[in-house]
């Protein structure tokens, strides 16, 4: 295909998936999807190759959805699909690593021919089982497991599945409402795709997909070839659930390929911070991309030159039925562990370690009218400092999930947030300072104790600095004035007591003695560092 037409077609495809995502977010019933943007959307060819993704979303969803489609096609081959079918699954091992993420896939038909798929993954409002926490010992406790199956068959809803769902989740209207939103996104995308294919006289998507994927792959390989060949090692420690977890990586740059191996990492945890291979691959690919080729599009072609291995049964490649609900706690470390390794080859392209995982604060109980509530919101600490500037305060990385406005939280849940502020002095010192974490203090308006689970990390192992930069402040969880023994464990909070979370700061970059005195003066004036 000649380059001008290809450019035009490619642009059109990106436009189509953005419309899919817009329709989804605008019709969603869940604040996590529409306010926090915890979703992904993309278009796939008939072989299950991701061709384009929406610009919204978060890497853990996008890249794992790209892998998920191949499983979906293996379970439901093309010839078994009919117009009006819609597929669904939340199989953690085949999608994005925990039951809370539901992937819905809409085949697009022209006449009787399936020409493409639109898929989206959304964090659902509830999936039954345990509340969103790391407490479970098996995935069975974590909620309803939906194998790959049809949610709609030839346009008719699968009433049996709907009935099971309604009986098993706490907020069936919101959950089913969001399925509806995901289907609406697929419908909008499908309609636009067919118009586009007709206009350009494309009988199939695959030739276009091949062009896009091959060019992307070539650009990715070219970028890798520019790296200094070698094997680079790094190791990082997470708090784990009850004992520290080691994440060990070797990155081998070999010609135009990168081989990444997590051999030597800790075995699976007994609690739900385990990561499935799909999710490990998703965040590894992302970690490589931000360093090596941020300007290369993200599709099947960008994944091919990177080979990823993790020992089976390790925390980065767990077997069923290990618990996995809080897999992002470990997964969000992967871009940092990769940066520490590849940074040895490209120090100007990486940032120091940051707070890494986004903290999820889940509360549930009964409000003053004895009505049950269950609400989750997310918050971010500081990112690592960069080779040319300070880290970002209270900003998500590597996740792309946003905070929920306090006024929205208080409108939909019986919570009163007393404080949401930058955490002074929490950024690691350096020539460039790490981003500050934040402090959030809240209480619930209830007549009886409520349950709170804080999916946190870096309370014992802070974000390290890079090239002489200092570590950021560790995170803290304080409930009713007391630091719980295990901050990740579910806590029963007395009526009226304050829950305070202090999110970690990012690490510094370069030695602090080389920091511009003007920046130090500004930091003192603004209270970013103690005077």
């Amino acid at each position: 295909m000649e380059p001008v037409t290809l450019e035009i077609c490619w642009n059109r495809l990106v436009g189509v998936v953005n419309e899919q995502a817009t329709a989804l977010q605008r019709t969603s019933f869940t604040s996590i999807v529409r306010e926090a943007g915890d979703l992904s959307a993309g278009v796939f060819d008939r072989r299950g190759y991701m061709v384009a993704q929406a610009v919204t979303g978060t890497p853990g969803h996008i890249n794992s959805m790209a892998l998920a489609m191949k499983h979906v096609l293996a379970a439901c081959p093309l010839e078994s699909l009919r117009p009006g079918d819609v597929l669904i699954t939340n199989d953690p091992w085949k999608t994005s690593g925990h039951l809370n993420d539901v992937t819905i896939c809409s085949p697009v038909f022209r006449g009787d021919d399936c020409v493409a798929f639109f898929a989206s993954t959304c964090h659902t409002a509830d999936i039954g089982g345990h509340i969103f926490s790391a407490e479970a010992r098996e995935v069975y406790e974590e909620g309803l497991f939906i194998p790959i199956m049809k949610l709609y068959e030839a346009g008719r809803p699968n009433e049996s599945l709907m009935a099971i769902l309604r009986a098993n989740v706490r907020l069936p209207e919101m959950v089913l409402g969001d399925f509806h939103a995901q289907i609406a996104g697929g419908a909008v995308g499908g309609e636009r795709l067919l118009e586009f294919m007709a206009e350009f006289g494309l009988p199939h998507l695959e030739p276009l997909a091949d062009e896009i994927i091959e060019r992307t792959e070539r650009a990715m390989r070219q970028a890798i070839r520019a790296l200094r060949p070698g094997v680079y090692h790094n190791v990082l420690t997470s708090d784990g659930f009850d004992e520290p977890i080691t994440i060990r990586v070797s990155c081998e740059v070999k010609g135009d390929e990168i081989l990444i191996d997590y051999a030597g990492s800790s075995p699976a945890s007994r609690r739900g911070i385990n990561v499935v291979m799909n999710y490990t691959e998703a965040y590894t690919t992302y970690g490589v991309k931000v360093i090596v080729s941020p300007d290369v599009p993200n599709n099947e072609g960008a994944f091919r030159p990177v080979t990823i291995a993790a020992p089976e049964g390790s925390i980065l490649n767990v077997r069923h039925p290990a618990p996995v609900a809080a897999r992002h706690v470990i997964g969000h470390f992967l871009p940092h562990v990769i940066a520490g390794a590849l940074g040895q080859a490209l120090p100007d392209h990486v940032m120091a370690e940051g707070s890494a995982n986004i903290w999820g604060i889940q509360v549930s109980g009964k409000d003053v009218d004895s009505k049950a509530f269950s609400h989750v919101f997310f918050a971010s600490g500081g990112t690592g400092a960069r080779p040319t500037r300070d880290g970002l305060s209270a900003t998500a990385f590597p996740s792309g999930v946003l905070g929920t406005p306090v006024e929205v939280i208080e409108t939909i849940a019986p919570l009163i947030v007393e404080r949401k502020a930058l955490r002074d002095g929490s950024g690691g010192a350096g020539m460039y300072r790490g981003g500050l974490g934040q402090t959030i203090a809240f209480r619930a308006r209830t007549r009886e104790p409520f349950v709170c689970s804080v999916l946190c990390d870096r309370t014992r192992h802070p974000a390290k600095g890079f090239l002489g930069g200092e570590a950021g402040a560790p995170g803290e969880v304080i409930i009713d004035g007391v630091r719980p023994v295990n901050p990740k464990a579910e806590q029963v909070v007395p009526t009226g007591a304050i829950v305070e979370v202090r999110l970690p700061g990012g690490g510094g970059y370069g030695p602090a003695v080389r920091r511009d005195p003007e920046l130090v003066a500004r930091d003192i004036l603004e209270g970013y560092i103690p005077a």
Partner: protein
Amino acid sequence: MPARLGVDIGGTFTDLVLVDERSGVLRVGKVLTTAKDPAHGVEQGIQGLLDESRVAARDVHAAVHGTTLATNALIERKGARTALLTTAGFRDVLEIRREGRYDMYDIFIDPPAPLVPRHLRREVEERMLADGTVLRPLDEAGARRVISGLVADGVEAIAICLLHAYVNPGHERRLAELVDELAPGVPVSCSSDVVPEIREYERASTTTANVYVVPLMARYLEDLERRLADLGVPGQLYVMQSSGGIVLPREARRFPIRLVESGPAAGAIAAAQAARERGESRLLSFDMGGTTAKACVIDDGAPLVAREFEVARADRFKMGSGMPVRVPVIEMIEIGAGGGSIARVDRMGLLKVGPDSAGADPGPACYNLGGRLPTVTDADLLLGYLDAEFFLGGRMRLDCEAARRSVEEHVARPLGLDVIAAAWGIHRVVNENMAAAARIHGIERGRDLRTYPLFAFGGAGPVHCWQVARVLRVPRILLPFGAGAISAYGLLSAPLAFDFVRTHRERLDTAEWATLNRLFVEMESQGRALLARAGVEESDVRVARVAEMRYLGQGHEVEAAVPDGLLSAASLETITTSFEAAYRALYHRLPQGVPIEALNWRVTVAGPAPNVRLSGATQTGRAADASSRATRPGGAVGGDVSSPPTCIIIKTTRKAYFAETGGFVDTPVYDRYALAAGTEFTGPAIVEERESTAVLGPGARCRVDERSTIIVDVPA
């Protein structure tokens, strides 16, 4: 003879238009913007225009003003030393924002720094709950200490944004009184006045940006009013808002943030005016200049209005990289596609055009001003669309050889194409980019653009309209006369209008209609009073009510009309129907059995659209010298000396490239100033006027109407 004056201050030029209300004769002037003292340039421009057109200052009974001064102050950080007062525990809301990154893959991005640095963000003890009840009363003694501290620190403006003030503004109002008492003369903005809507970051951002530009805009508008008086202009000064309505300076001084996009808004208003004059229920306004292109949907003679906008983006074309402001703004999509947009081959081996632009300096390669990179203008020149000798009416010569060298080196060779194929590629890609942006804009609002004629203006709009129309499959193109004057003309066709909003969450099926009636009466009577003060007859007042609604549990609202008059349970069905229709247009299907709730209730109270008819030809004067020329209505040719007085409508022919014919064809070049009403011709054709050139391909059927607009039928 009564006249109206329009003045549009842009970054480089200030455009002026003067219209004689009886004859419809329009005069246009252009002066360089005097950035340091903008009112000075305006005064000189007006004086020049009045002198040249021999209109007496005393005859100007209204002056309408559009300006980007507020936007520029926000971009350049030249506003007041501003403080922010917040609920205790929340002073960092401006800096924490929504915790996102606007680019997922670029680790080097920074969000724009908050307008108020942390040491000027102070907290007061108080707390409202989400339902408006007071959890903790305002600590007045503490508040007094905080305000006095700010006075001592020399702040020049104070923003107040307390949690849940959109439900209960009590504490904000009291704080504002304390500021008035302790810091008299320091302007203060309350979030409950500027934008009484849920979401604390967006509200704080808007309120802060508002008060940040209050002192500057107040000084400027006072200065301008004084200068108009000195010139002997007795008429009232009005100011254009981003929503497309005009207001009195008094309102503009309180809410200057509502002026941010008034320049581009004026172009859309002009398109809307054209739609009304022509009886077109739909139009797609398409404005392509040197750096950006803007598209805007016009329905029933009015542009769509959005409620949110971003100013001072860190990356101009990246959503989320700026400061959010929640103000009514004419909804348009802007992308980095203009005559100066640079073409290059990316690492994927694909041809990319924009969003970076060579601007006017160093400019396209063919300007020979130092620019070496190929741009859209260079491609257009090589394709024969532009005349190297008649660019800007011959004021500037273009260098074909420089254009060829640059396209050859940077596009043709890397892609293995010949120069013309490369130039055609640049032309196509930029057109596709604009069409794609327009299409997303349409789809976000549930509009099918295939039923929208294209209203093309701006320096480069007419050059690219043919291909854009083909890609969008629109049926018709309208090419107004005098593309360069369009925006300023829009100022004169805007009605006097005031926008109001109240947040009041209410399920429709259990709505307290009495409360809603009270809110509407409150907003409407306020609007009517403002209009009455401006001299609008009660019988001319138009009121439009809109509610932002959603299904219970959703987080994004869809706007739908609310009937006039007293609301009651009987209104439920009308409102539900109107919401469902709007929802279905956007998302195809309706959730079943979910109640509908309304969040924001809005009212626009507007006076009549001024009866200004752009009849006949207009002409713009030369840049920077305030020259102006008069034209006459209804005629083929303005009576102006510089327009050819005869019927030689084809100036020449030249070879121009059309894909439909597979290459270059001899194409007649029409003289825009010689095209009489009723003239018909077919494409391929080129029509030249001083500031723009229209390119129409094979199959185009063109006719000139009595307003000198060229109507082009685009074959399917």
